[in-house]
């Protein structure tokens, strides 16, 4: 297809505002999928994606649309992950597009997640077509939705298309707007063939399937192409598009999106955002490439220590389709062998843990998550620390910088007081407050990432009885008075509980942890001291008093067998005990505390 008849676009929407329903409508209306093949939610392939209503991988799909002007256009919809954890992937997918549909639920209005994604799309220079969806709902409030588009996102409200994806209203208008308002792709001025890799996935038979957008020249099977960042040159085996199932084509022309395969077995050789080009006469790389940097780290351990090998295999398999996930072996006295995993953000972390549990049937426990700190040393060198266990000795540290995010919280006006209190408890700073409509306000704040790792979102949900929403985008690092809090048992540090926390939070956290540990550490034949310490300084202490006896009173002929079995079970259990500072602690105890963290 000539570039003038190609439109590449994505869809931005808050969960449940109708992205999937609308996509399905578009596929149907363009005849890409016959009605009888329609199954609910065509694009969200993974169970987890369907259940949580989030897209994790990009799903491109190619449609042919005969417009009112009589001409046929190739519309490439690139369904992008809808969460800022995947902001980089989203930005790469968006850069394969020239425009985006912004869907807003007519009854709900603009939500926090939409704000962060619209900002990303605008940064990419995409043309945005606002769509007010669900106008069929009795409590749809179209004027208010238009107003919010203008007030919150600075998008002219009268440009919005009114639609009901469910009822099939406005679908035609949307297709026409895509053709009319979104610019056709323009070739770059590269000297040779050039394409952008915007995602990839792993196929057991074909190897890595690379999703590409051609920015110059054309792609055919049999061509030699070079992946600039990974440096590999490969032969293209297959070229195709999705409808939404993959189908082969003889070529992809400039401006088109689709996939290639090249017998690549290791997904890590294919980097999202990389450029592929002609190896003999390479074009320059496309802008915006980044190596992926995990933002959040956490140790993942099998509950049953014998499952470590299986955990490793499972995580490796998961990584085939999730190259943003990083891991390396880690071991802890408390939990045995496990993997220290790096995630793009909170949601990514949850998804990985959930998939390990569900798809791989692994029983796992995760340690307290850590963000990545920048540590300026006294010799002016800088280190990145993602594991508190590896924080250099404080005497060599000049300053610790912690990652900061800009967070958007949308909540009912009634809850604003509680939400502000929550934000300040979390060391956040409110930048501004906007009234969205009669009921809702949006708070924009600056907040340390480490403060929102654990229960920020849950607490917003509970304060607002489910009506609040939250999203965030990274905003660099800031100097911060962070200290390393260690938990010790009889003088020995248990790394699984070490964390970098702000000085003002250290004591409270130390006390809580010490009290919890006291509950779960069984009494020993000697006294056990549980201490929380910053550097060498003890800030909280609990004592588990010594057992004075463990013997049960009687044991005669009839009791011996039962008693033996009991003791044997105990002995078996002790094999799974971890010895910390000569204190025997069952692994379950650690798990218990980590769970309630």
């Amino acid at each position: 297809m000539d570039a003038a008849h190609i439109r590449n676009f994505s869809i931005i929407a808050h969960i449940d505002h109708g992205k999937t329903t609308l996509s399905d409508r578009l596929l149907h209306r363009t005849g890409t999928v016959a009605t009888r093949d329609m199954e609910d939610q065509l694009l969200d392939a993974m169970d987890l994606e369907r259940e949580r209503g989030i897209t994790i991988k990009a799903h491109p799909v190619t449609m042919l649309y005969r417009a009112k002007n009589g001409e046929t256009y190739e519309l490439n919809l690139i369904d992008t992950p809808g969460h800022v954890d995947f902001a980089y992937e989203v930005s790469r997918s968006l850069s394969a597009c020239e425009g985006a549909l912004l869907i807003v639920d007519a009854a709900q209005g603009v939500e926090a997640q939409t704000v962060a994604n619209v900002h990303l799309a605008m940064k990419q220079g995409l043309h945005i077509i606002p769509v007010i969806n669900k106008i069929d709902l009795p409590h749809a409030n179209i004027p208010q939705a238009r107003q919010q588009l203008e007030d919150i996102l600075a998008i002219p409200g009268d440009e919005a298309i009114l639609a009901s994806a469910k009822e099939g209203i406005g679908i035609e208008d949307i297709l026409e707007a895509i053709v009319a308002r979104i610019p056709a792709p323009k070739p770059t001025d590269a000297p040779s063939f050039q394409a952008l890799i915007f995602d990839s996935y792993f196929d057991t038979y074909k190897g890595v399937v690379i999703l590409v957008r051609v920015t110059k020249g054309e792609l055919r099977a049999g061509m030699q192409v070079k992946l600039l960042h990974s440096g590999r040159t490969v032969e293209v085996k297959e070229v195709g598009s999705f409808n939404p199932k993959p189908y082969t084509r003889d070529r992809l022309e400039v401006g088109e999106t689709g996939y290639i395969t090249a017998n690549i077995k290791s997904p890590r050789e294919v980097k999202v955002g990389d450029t592929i080009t002609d190896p003999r006469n390479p074009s320059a790389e496309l802008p915006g490439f980044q190596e992926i940097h995990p933002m959040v780290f956490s140790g993942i351990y099998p509950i049953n220590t014998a499952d470590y090998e299986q955990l490793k295999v499972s995580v490796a398999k998961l990584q085939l389709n999730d190259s943003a996930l990083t891991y390396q072996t880690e071991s802890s006295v408390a939990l045995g062998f496990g993997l220290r995993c790096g995630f793009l953000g909170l949601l990514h972390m949850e998804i990985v843990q959930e998939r390990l549990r569900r798809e791989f049937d692994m029983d796992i426990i995760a340690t307290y998550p850590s963000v990545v700190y920048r540590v300026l040393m006294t010799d002016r060198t800088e280190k990145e620390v993602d594991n508190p266990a590896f924080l250099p000795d404080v005497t060599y540290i000049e300053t610790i910088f912690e990652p900061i995010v800009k967070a958007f919280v949308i909540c009912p006006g009634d809850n604003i007081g509680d939400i502000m209190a929550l934000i300040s408890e979390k060391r956040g700073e409110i930048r501004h407050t906007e009234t969205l409509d009669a009921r809702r306000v949006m708070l924009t704040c600056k907040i340390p990432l480490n403060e929102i790792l654990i229960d920020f979102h849950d607490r917003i949900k509970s304060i607002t009885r489910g009506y609040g929403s939250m999203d965030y985008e990274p905003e660099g690092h800031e100097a911060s008075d962070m200290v390393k809090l260690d938990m010790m048992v009889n003088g020995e540090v248990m790394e699984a509980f070490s964390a970098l926390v702000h000085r003002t939070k250290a004591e409270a956290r130390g006390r809580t942890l010490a009290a919890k540990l006291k509950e779960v550490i069984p009494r020993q034949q000697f006294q056990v001291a549980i201490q929380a310490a910053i550097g060498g300084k003890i800030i909280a202490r609990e004592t588990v008093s010594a057992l004075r006896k463990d013997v049960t009173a009687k044991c005669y002929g009839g009791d011996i067998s039962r008693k033996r079995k009991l003791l044997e079970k105990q002995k078996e259990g002790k094999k799974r005990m971890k010895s910390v500072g000569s204190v025997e602690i069952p692994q379950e105890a650690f798990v218990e505390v980590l769970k309630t963290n």
Partner: protein
Amino acid sequence: MPATPAGAEPVRSLYVHVPFCAHKCEYCAFYSAPPSGDVVNRYVAALVRELELIAPDCRPNTIFFGGGTPSLLTLKQWETVLLAMERLGLTRAGEWTVECNPATVSADKAKLLRDFGVNRISMGVQSLDEQLLERLGRIHTRDQVFRSFDTLRAAGFENLNLDLMFAIPGQTMALWQRTLDEALALGSEHLSCYEVIYEEDTPLFAQLNAGEFDVDEDLACDLYDALIDRSSAAGFRQYEIANFARDRRSNGQGPMTKAPEPQAGELVIGNGPLDLPTFACRHNVGYWRGLDSYGCGPSASEYVRGLRAKNWSNTTLYCEQLEKGRRAKEMAEALPPLGRAGELAAFGLRMNRGWGFAEFTVRTGFDLRAGWQSEMGDLIRCGWAAVTGDRFHLTRAGLRFADSAAERFLRPEAL
């Protein structure tokens, strides 16, 4: 039941379980039920049948009738059992104990038992405080204890045991000391003292779980210390975690004219701290030394030539099986030699005298010093055990952690 295999010794120990109690105590997890209707007669007949089956392989040096409440059998029923035992040649035991409830002792019964050769009575006293007796759901009064004691002495019993319990919910140190002093003053030859155990499926356990009271472990430890100190001041020697006995020469009150003669070679009676006191219960010592023993009656356990077995804990089922002429075993397991040796090492340490190295090798075929060297070393290092002469034994501190010690000596991997 086959007779003793050629070349083997007949079994020298016999336990008989009498599964009836007038009323269930709050803490009790033993198998017992109220003696309703004709079930007791049916049981007596079945028991006689079972005794007939094992008799060809049993020449008991020690017999123990436990329960339940053996003293609940009527004179007539006792006579049936005793006559059968006489006929079967089971009555010549050097030590023959019958457990009695202070509420069910009568002069006639005492005399009958004594006449047939029973020479030791174990009385379930538990406490001498009326309120605590009530708390435990015991059916007897404190006065019945004193009266029964006199009745038994009058019938000629010269070896009496009192069972006491401590750490009963509501029991203070003062209450315990009073019970202890009064019990010691009675002048029995033997004392068994247990800390209350909370067994699942007992009312006491349910009350504990429901938060009706708390367990005060420190108090329990103090009560135990008081027990050790007072009983030894009164001439008792502890020979096992919960068992105390007098020596013939220690001049306590009471008659103590005739002590049972030592029988099995390994029961060394003497005055040394690691020797057994004269009135140690030989039957129970046999368990801790790993001697073979038959067990008859519902829920009874036995250990005979490497096979551990247990009868059904169901009197009707028990009777049905024996009426068909076969024993009523619920399970039987063979213990491999190392597993059994581990078990004996473990439970033998409950006795103050621990294990003589030679003695252990004779009983198990294994050398304690070779197979359990590191365990012994660990316990010695933390002050829980010592080697004295050629014996390995727990210390006073170690006896408080006998379960931890036992756990180390077990060899589950051999099972």
